[in-house]
């Protein structure tokens, strides 16, 4: 893979990022001439409060001036202060990012791995009970709102059976450290991670199944069998690597979904990450926080797209060597 290819992709990602940053500006100012009035509808605001808020939002001065000022601040990761905590938005985000990265990371990896394996199993046993069962299961999981699944799991396994804590990331009464603390956190993470994994593996299964079915018609598999390879090896060495390519392309999109899904799921399990922060910022509404979160979510999806693009090119020699 050439350096030219990578720099082209990185440049593309940067342009997209700049677009999102600009879009964010217009979202809050052009779509709605007076976000202050709208966000605080129903609340009495004095003239001076209003002026103060307008200043805070950078709504004074001409649009051009506002835009330049906004760009400068964004470049310095200055997204203003959160209303609810009065801390800089960026500090709040940094503080909460870890919990979300852990949850979303684990769920994204698990849903991909399990989803792909189910897809392989279904395609390989096409038109058998296993195939129908897997397809029905994934269709069902795909059709549920993820937070509803979270509510069901929470009610049953945490409230009714008491196997898992009902929320949070650690037991507030516990003073455990080291491994014990990690185990406690894993215990807390189990249900939210399970919810996200189940909710998002369906896409992988469906795509992997259909991709593998396509691949299984390929002539090079007949050659592999003719060479004397066992069926399992024909599948693992020849069919799966080819069938995986379209799935890699899906990964970035799906990552965006898992990240979005984390908003409601973190709210349900009071998982103290960016999703819960979004949920709380919405109830405020805490506009600077929402803006900052929007940018962070978008930037991470863009980053993931970039990674997926490069991974795809690296996996497919036809792209890599051209």
């Amino acid at each position, binding site marked *: 893979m050439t350096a030219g290819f990578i720099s082209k992709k990185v440049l593309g990602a940067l342009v997209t990022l700049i677009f999102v940053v600009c879009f964010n500006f217009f979202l809050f100012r052009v779509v709605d001439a007076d976000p202050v009035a709208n966000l605080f509808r129903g609340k009495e605001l004095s003239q001076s409060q209003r002026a103060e808020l307008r200043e805070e939002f950078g709504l004074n001065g001409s649009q051009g001036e506002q835009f330049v000022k906004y760009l400068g601040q964004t470049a310095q990761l200055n997204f203003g202060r959160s209303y609810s905590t009065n801390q800089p938005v960026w500090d709040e985000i940094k503080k909460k990012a870890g919990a979300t990265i852990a949850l979303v990371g684990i769920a994204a990896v698990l849903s991909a791995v399990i989803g792909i394996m189910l897809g392989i199993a279904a395609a390989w046993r096409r038109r058998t009970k296993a195939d129908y069962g897997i397809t029905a299961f994934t269709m069902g999981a795909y059709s549920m709102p993820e937070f509803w699944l979270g509510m069901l799991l929470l009610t049953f396994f945490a409230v009714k059976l008491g196997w898992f804590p009902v929320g949070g990331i650690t037991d507030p009464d516990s003073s455990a450290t080291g491994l014990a603390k990690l185990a406690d956190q894993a215990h807390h993470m189990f249900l939210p991670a399970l919810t996200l994994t189940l909710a998002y593996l369906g896409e992988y299964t469906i795509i992997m199944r259909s991709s593998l079915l396509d691949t299984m018609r390929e002539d090079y598999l007949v050659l592999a069998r*003719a060479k*004397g390879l066992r069926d399992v090896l024909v599948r693992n060495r020849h069919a799966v690597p080819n069938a995986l390519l379209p799935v890699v392309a899906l990964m970035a999109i799906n990552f965006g979904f898992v990240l979005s899904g984390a908003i409601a799921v973190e709210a349900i399990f009071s998982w103290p990450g960016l999703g819960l922060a979004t949920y709380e910022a919405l109830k405020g509404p805490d506009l600077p926080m929402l803006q900052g979160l929007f940018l962070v979510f978008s930037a991470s999806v863009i980053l993931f797209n970039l990674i997926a693009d490069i991974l795809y090119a690296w996996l497919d020699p036809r792209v890599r060597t051209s």
Partner: protein
Amino acid sequence: MSGQVPLLSVRDLHVTYAAAERPVPAVRGVDIELEVGETLGLAGESGCGKSSLAGALLRLLPGGTEVTGEVLLDGEDVLTMKPGRLRAVRWTDLAIVFQGALHTLNPVQRVGDQIGEAIRLHSKGTSHAKVRERVGELLELVGLPARRARDYPHQLSGGQRQRVLIGLALACEPRLLIADEPTTALDVMVQAQVLRLLEDLQERFGLATIFITHDLSTLASVCRRLAVMYAGRIVEQGPSHDVFAAPTHPYTRALAGAFPVIGDQAFRMAPAGLPGDPPDPRHLPEGCPFHPRCPAAVETCSSVPVELWPAGPGRAAACIHAPGSPVPA
């Protein structure tokens, strides 16, 4: 013929594909006998069942396909072999150069690895370096520099890929090679090169070969014996020069009479001078399946079934005009 068991002996082979509406009988009773080192040419129009026959010999046809009869390799029936034995026989006794070089190589694996995989599979424990060396030798054997082993299929031209496939087929030193239209997708110059290469290899290694094409003139120059297929059956066979120079079956005559430009796709579909289309295997005409297109057809052809009747020394033809035909024409 010597008293030994022949290398390959196919008896009454039938291949029937499972299809949505009705099954497709692609091969309908074929007998083939092949001695060690012998070459047989198999000709026929597109869709007459040549590839189906080749696939059946190693049980490579899609699941649900019904294959009956006997395929005896050294007297052992491939069709009833246990899976483990079958895998061992594949590529070491019988290897195939598949039709369509463009799609038969795995696009995400280096060609050297694809050749090496076969070597490693059949001689377990071969060292890495040994495998690499052998892959290099094979590539050079087919006229490619050894460093091409590191290339991916898309980095090779059509002719080079075909060479890789031939090298791959020779990887485990099989005793029988089936070359299924090894030159169809190639341009004229490259076709001639590949053919010469195959001829050369066959002589050097004493390889028995079944050579499949639609082009009778090529076969006549490369193979000692010829078999012509029509609608899933062999309709004429014999020593290739005799068959080519004086065909008995009107279908062979049509194939031989037309001197095609090599690689001419139009000819591939419909031999010159032959009206109509090749028959749909699901709806074969009564009597001789060739009679609707046959210039020499008589009334009985549409009702009397034909089979291979003697037609001169070492020859047979499935036509009521054949000298040995019991049916009065």
